[in-house]
């Protein structure tokens, strides 16, 4: 009985550890986002703004974030029988629509970095539905 309980606890802890990174907001990345060092890209991944003075820590967090994104896109793309790039682009549409705050930078479809301001809304990629 005790052993069963202990086993269940280990499983639960493992599950929590696996799920937590995906759910928890990364404060470091959020700060970098707010500071205009990094931003969302039209390809569905996170990017580092050219010329930004970015620490190795931020750089590796961006890489890790993108690896996790790619895994998500890949899994869902396989389920829907579409390419990974298409799945990533679909997510980019949602992100550009709802997740880029005022003052944050983003990289548009043409590859140029832009900043969302109160007077300049996010330029939506052409492949996004209206």
């Amino acid at each position: 009985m005790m052993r069963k309980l202990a086993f269940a606890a280990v499983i639960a802890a493992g599950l929590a550890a696996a799920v937590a990174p995906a759910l928890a907001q990364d404060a470091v990345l959020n700060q970098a986002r707010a500071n205009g060092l990094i931003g969302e890209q039209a390809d569905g991944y996170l990017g580092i703004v050219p010329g930004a003075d970015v620490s190795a820590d931020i750089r590796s967090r961006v890489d890790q974030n993108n690896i996790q994104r790619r895994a998500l896109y890949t899994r869902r793309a396989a389920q829907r029988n579409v390419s990974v790039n298409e799945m990533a682009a679909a997510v980019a549409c949602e992100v550009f629509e709802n997740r880029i705050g005022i003052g944050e930078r983003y990289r548009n479809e043409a590859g140029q970095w832009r900043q969302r301001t109160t007077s300049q809304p996010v330029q939506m990629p052409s492949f996004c539905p209206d």
Partner: protein
Amino acid sequence: MRMRAQMLTGLGAAIAAAGCIPVQIQAPDEPIEINLNVNIRQEVIVRLERDAEELLENNSGLFGGPSQ
């Protein structure tokens, strides 16, 4: 010496093969192929809209918080 001979033979074969490829100078009927691709793509994107929403909701830590 033998190596060189083999290389030369290979080169000759490559040139011969290249010479056999018919050169088509036909003008393309649809010069707007890029636009065509975008259309197909957009269709797929529309179909994936709900999946994308769900991915964002379930993994909000990977993406920025909801913006105003």
